[in-house]
């Protein structure tokens, strides 16, 4: 539960704040009003629609060799997974998968560090802060494909080769960083400035304050930024399309498969990438829980 609280940042914080008055949830102090049932039904339908299609392709990816893109299942097999990693027809899945993970790792590290520093800077007003803020918003909302092509052309004009670890890295950062900084804003808004002053009062240098006070306190929020950085990069398509050079990343590979491949290996790929996504979510949320647990354990010894 604690992990969820931290991962959700402001939402959870607000929720926690309102917990003390949960008894006061107004419309429905006496029994549930009819709106509750209507909304609960809508919510349930939404969740079913959210997960239903995904679950169906996970099931279909275990389709028998005779089976097609739709139900019914003609039997269970791992044929399409095998197909995915062996067939030339489906392209370089393994290589692109490899690149995507490496790229996402790079993007994650850079996003966490840069967003953290920007978050520190944005805690107070300074000359030009609004310009930078809108620059970030602009970078966030600009059409990704247009920026990707601009980046590709820029590299071309400068006589540089586009590659996934240069131009695509930068193009993805222009999308993950504004996101990361916005998350950082929400995380920072819960940081009490008095902690920093107390550290200074006790003789900590600015660097010691960051290392011993700010980073440990914000750690769960930083993990959340990392989680954003990783998944946004791992799924990024539009900005990467024209900047990745001659070698594909995984979403680009999937894209070309959707245009060429009409077999359940497409679903198998979906299943594999989703497993990776869930692993990353698990690692992210797990490490947040671990941080919280360790803190709680530090406290438990005194009981």
């Amino acid at each position, binding site marked *: 539960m604690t992990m969820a609280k931290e991962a959700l940042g402001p939402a959870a914080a*607000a929720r926690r704040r309102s917990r003390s008055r949960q008894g*006061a949830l107004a419309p429905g102090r006496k029994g549930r009003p009819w709106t509750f049932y209507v909304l609960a039904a809508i919510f349930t339908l939404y969740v079913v629609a959210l997960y239903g299609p995904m679950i169906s*392709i996970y099931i279909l990816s275990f389709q028998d060799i005779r089976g097609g893109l739709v139900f019914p299942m003609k039997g269970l097999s791992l044929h399409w997974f095998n197909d995915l990693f062996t067939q030339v027809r489906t392209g370089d899945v393994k290589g692109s998968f490899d690149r995507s993970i490496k790229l996402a790792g790079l993007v994650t590290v850079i996003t966490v560090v840069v967003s953290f520093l920007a978050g520190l800077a944005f805690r107070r007003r300074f000359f030009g802060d609004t310009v930078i803020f809108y620059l970030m918003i602009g970078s966030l909302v600009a059409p990704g494909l247009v920026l990707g092509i601009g980046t590709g052309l820029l590299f071309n004009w400068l006589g540089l080769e586009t590659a996934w670890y240069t131009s695509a890295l930068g193009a993805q950062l222009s999308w993950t960083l504004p996101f990361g*900084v*916005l998350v950082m804003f929400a995380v920072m808004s819960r940081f009490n400035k008095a902690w920093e002053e107390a550290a200074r009062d006790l003789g900590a240098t600015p660097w010691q304050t960051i290392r011993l006070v700010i980073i440990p306190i914000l750690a769960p929020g930083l993990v959340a930024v990392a989680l954003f950085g990783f998944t946004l990069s791992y799924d990024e398509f539009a900005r990467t399309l024209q900047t990745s050079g001659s070698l594909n990343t995984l979403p680009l590979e999937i894209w070309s498969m959707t245009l060429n491949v009409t077999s359940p290996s497409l679903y198998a790929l979906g299943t594999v990438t989703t497993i990776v996504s869930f692993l990353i979510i698990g690692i992210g949320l797990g490490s947040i829980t671990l941080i919280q647990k360790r803190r709680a354990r530090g406290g438990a010894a005194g009981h």
Partner: protein
Amino acid sequence: MTLRRHLTSWLFLSPLLVVLIPFFVLPFIVVLTASFFDSDGFGGLLPTFTLVNYANLFTSSLTLNLYLATLKFTVLTWFFSLILGFLVAYFLAFHVRNPLLGIGLFLLCTVPFWTSNIIRMISWIPLLGKEGLINMALLKLGLIHEPLEILLFSSVAVVIAYVHQLTIFMIVPIFNSMARIDKRVVEAALDAGASRLDIMRLIVIPMSKSGIALGSIFVVSIVMGDFFVVKVMSGGGSASVVGAFYEDISVLQYPSAAASAVVLTVALMVLIGLILRTVDIRREITR
């Protein structure tokens, strides 16, 4: 001393600028520049200054159709995701009484966000297709006699895929604003004799405004900048501004593509600017 403070802030921001300038500002300038260039017809650019690309753009009836198509998808997606997102957020914020359950349900809504968009879109194919689950079910029930073709590779499919992907962008910010509403305010309104409709109209909606604005920014900018969903889910039947841009690029028509991109980006920025005028999102986020 204050000067030093400003400099420190800029120092901490410099890594951000090191990324945003070469990968956002410069690429946009490049596209802007290219939009005034002439094409040699073989994919090369002739560095001249011409407005012919813009002239072609604004005189072509194709442009208008493209923009109308994109606008149609934007408005439909925005509308449905707003309604759905608002209702889901309202349910989570006001009707779920157990906070633990609330966080659990909220997580349930957010998890798919962390998985691949493309995969989530493809996953509609076995459901909506001619031999998909929905058609099969309807046939079995005897409600239809022929499979419905309109479900997949149509505008309906495009909107379904968008709403499926983007409602989460509405839920999170709206839920955030709603969670901040002091429930005692609602109680006070009830005590004052307000009806459920009054509470919605006078308290919940005005106080969720910032969340609605933030969600709208995400949804509008993503739909307007997208071409992938339209291309795959409409089966090539519908076009979009960015889709046409991509086609132009693949036939090396850089200048006209660039002009179209500039117009789209400006239109998008104006739209976002209008939304931003209604709410100070920086203050909202840092609050």
